[in-house]
């Protein structure tokens, strides 16, 4: 993975010192609440329901074992012993006292980490595919481009006070695992017929109050033009995006207001200038230099590729886990392992300090000392030799990290909701727990096939409910927690926004309603049809009839 040089290190060290002084000035009354707010936000610190919340940046989801250990140390020392991994591949701590944040940032800096631009109206952490560099359907490894974008965006002087937050995602595979169609900018690596590498560029996607699927602003952007083009989009947005109403300030609203064609031509016009800027031009050597940071690990060549087959004949528990939680790999004899953070008794995406320590150690022993965070709020050990899978499975299981449920109903995306978030209308973690309790038969869950259930505690949509196959959104009805259910959403290649089932249901009805929907599906499905396919074929009506019967 990318290693800091002295300049990168200097920058994060100086950032810590700067923020330490800003915190001191705030506590001394020299900075007003209003003046301090964007400063702390751009260092990841929110003020939440019970305490501040600190969001730490995990650039495109990559972590070394040393970094994981520091994340565990922070959970233990400054928090209540756990952290929450987010859909944007970051980690959040829910209880760090404001005065300790400079110390936390200093600890992070010792392992080349920071919380820069993890919130606030600026360019956020760039996200990507958790299987980057190993996916069988990969066109090109997106990580070097992600790092280029990270550097370009970090403390960019012109774009620190944008109209609103700005999120970029990059995918290098056929199958979009980075939800690029619901980002402010989505970049999809492509190769032309004559082998030239570049990006399809989407703009104006996003969830939240006004969910919108992004539109293509440029069908093909040669790779060396990446930064000039991004700069052009950001400049157009910085100048023209609305600032009078925070709910209309995202780039998606600007794109809708101008129309994609007018927006695209404004960007093209600006790009004719930015592409001449030597500071933004990428030479082949630059790109090659970034690629050098992401070499293939030293794979063993003596792996017994039949090893897993033998195991599959035996232990049924291992089989389940192998089928659900491991993924095929470019390298013969290797698989990627998804470490499920969706155990029944834990909030989705949460990991304790001990679990983080365990993953750090297992990564060292089984996967070249690296781990990844997924959009789906799990972790990944990307390079595991198949003849070591069984041993790894045993060890993960001891730490409660081998729940064989990846991609199933119980692999829910879930925001912190009412338990932690001051914006929430309703709880989400408790609904996830109720769902887990009701659907606790693994074989039944497997029979349901791929099913994405996403939960958000309010319309800001951090739990991506609008793109869940089943989406559950907390709403407030006269002070009571109610839930709006949507069906048929997707954030994959066929990105779609879910349709409303009907009137919101009360908290004690959510799981029953879910069950009716699931029953409707199992009755209606034909052959191997997935939930989403069935829904698309039959439409809302039969689901609705069952749900409100």
């Amino acid at each position, binding site marked *: 993975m990318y290693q800091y040089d002295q300049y990168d290190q200097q920058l994060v060290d*100086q*950032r810590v010192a700067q923020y330490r002084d*800003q915190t001191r000035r705030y506590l001394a009354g020299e900075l007003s609440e209003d*003046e301090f707010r964007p400063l702390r936000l751009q260092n990841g610190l929110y003020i939440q329901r019970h305490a501040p919340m600190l969001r730490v940046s995990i650039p495109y989801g990559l972590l070394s074992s040393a970094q994981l250990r520091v994340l565990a140390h922070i959970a233990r020392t400054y928090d209540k012993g756990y952290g929450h991994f987010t859909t944007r591949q970051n980690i959040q701590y829910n209880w760090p006292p404001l005065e300790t944040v400079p110390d936390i940032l200093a600890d992070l800096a010792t392992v080349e980490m920071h919380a820069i631009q993890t919130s606030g109206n600026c360019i956020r952490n760039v996200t990507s595919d958790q299987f980057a560099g190993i996916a069988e359907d990969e066109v090109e490894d997106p990580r070097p481009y992600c790092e280029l974008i990270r550097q370009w965006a970090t*403390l960019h002087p012109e774009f*620190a*006070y944008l109209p609103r937050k700005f999120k970029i995602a990059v995918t290098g595979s056929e199958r979009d695992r980075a939800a690029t169609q619901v980002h402010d900018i989505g970049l999809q690596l492509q190769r032309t017929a004559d082998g030239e590498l570049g990006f399809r560029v989407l703009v104006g996607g996003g969830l939240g109050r006004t969910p919108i699927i992004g539109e293509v602003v440029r069908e093909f952007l040669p790779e060396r033009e990446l930064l000039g083009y991004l700069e052009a989009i950001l400049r157009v947005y*910085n100048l023209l995006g609305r600032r009078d109403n925070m709910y209309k300030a995202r780039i998606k609203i600007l794109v809708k207001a101008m129309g994609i064609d007018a927006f695209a031509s404004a960007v093209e016009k600006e790009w004719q200038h930015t592409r001449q800027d030597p*500071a933004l031009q990428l030479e082949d050597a630059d790109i090659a*230099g970034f690629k050098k940071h992401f070499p293939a690990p030293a794979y063993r060549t003596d792996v017994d590729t039949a090893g897993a087959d033998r195991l599959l004949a035996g232990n049924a528990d291992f089989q389940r886990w192998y089928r659900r939680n491991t993924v095929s790999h470019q390298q013969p004899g290797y698989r990627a392992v998804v470490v499920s953070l969706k155990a029944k008794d834990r909030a989705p995406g949460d990991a304790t300090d001990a679990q983080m320590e365990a993953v750090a150690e297992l990564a060292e022993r089984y996967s070249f000392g690296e781990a990844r965070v997924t959009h789906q709020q799990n972790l990944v050990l990307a390079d595991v030799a198949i003849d070591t899978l069984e041993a790894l499975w045993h060890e993960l299981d001891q730490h409660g990290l081998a729940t064989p449920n990846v991609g199933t109903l119980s692999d829910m995306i879930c925001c912190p909701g009412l338990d932690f978030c001051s914006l929430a209308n309703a709880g989400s973690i408790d609904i996830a727990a109720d769902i887990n309790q009701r659907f606790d038969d693994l074989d039944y869950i497997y029979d349901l096939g791929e099913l994405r259930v996403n939960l958000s505690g309010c319309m800001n949509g951090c739990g991506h409910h609008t793109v869940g196959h089943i989406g559950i959104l907390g709403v407030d009805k006269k002070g009571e927690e109610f839930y709006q259910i949507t069906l048929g959403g997707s954030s994959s290649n066929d990105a779609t926004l879910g349709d409303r089932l009907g009137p919101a249901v009360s908290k004690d009805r959510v799981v029953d309603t879910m069950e009716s929907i699931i029953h409707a599906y199992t009755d209606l499905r034909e052959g191997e049809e997935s939930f989403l396919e069935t829904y698309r074929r039959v439409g809302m009506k039969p689901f609705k009839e069952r749900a409100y019967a």
Partner: protein
Amino acid sequence: MPNLIRDRKLVDDDTWTHLDDEQPVPASGDVTVSWQRWQAEADTLRNRDGRLGVRLDGDVPVEELAGLTELPLIALHFPAFKDGRCYSHARLLRSRHGYAGEIRAIGDVLRDQLAYMERCGINAFEIREDRSADEALQAFDEFSVDYQGRSERPFPLRLRRS
């Protein structure tokens, strides 16, 4: 105490006066006028004894910047420090239009934004009256590296070190 910083130094002999649109234009002395006034009265404003600058805010389209490069001073107004539009105006004035005069930030100008402003090409800062310009000077030394380059160091790190 002066509240103006120019080229990283406190300035206590600033000659510029910002004229409201209603204020009569004095026959001499250095004045700035609003963009609207400058457009309406450009000819008369030129025929006087003293220098002329113009004040812009984020509403002024960046296409208009090309016509301003002869002016000795362009003031960029930040109505609230969170309104980041004029960072783009500053950057374009310096990089695209080769503007060499003074670019001065006015309005809600605070220490914690100065470094970004300077890296975009703003070289003078009227620090908000209730804050110390002297203390704000420290803002310029907080970072010795950046990824995007700035006027005196035009190439970003990524190229310098490869």
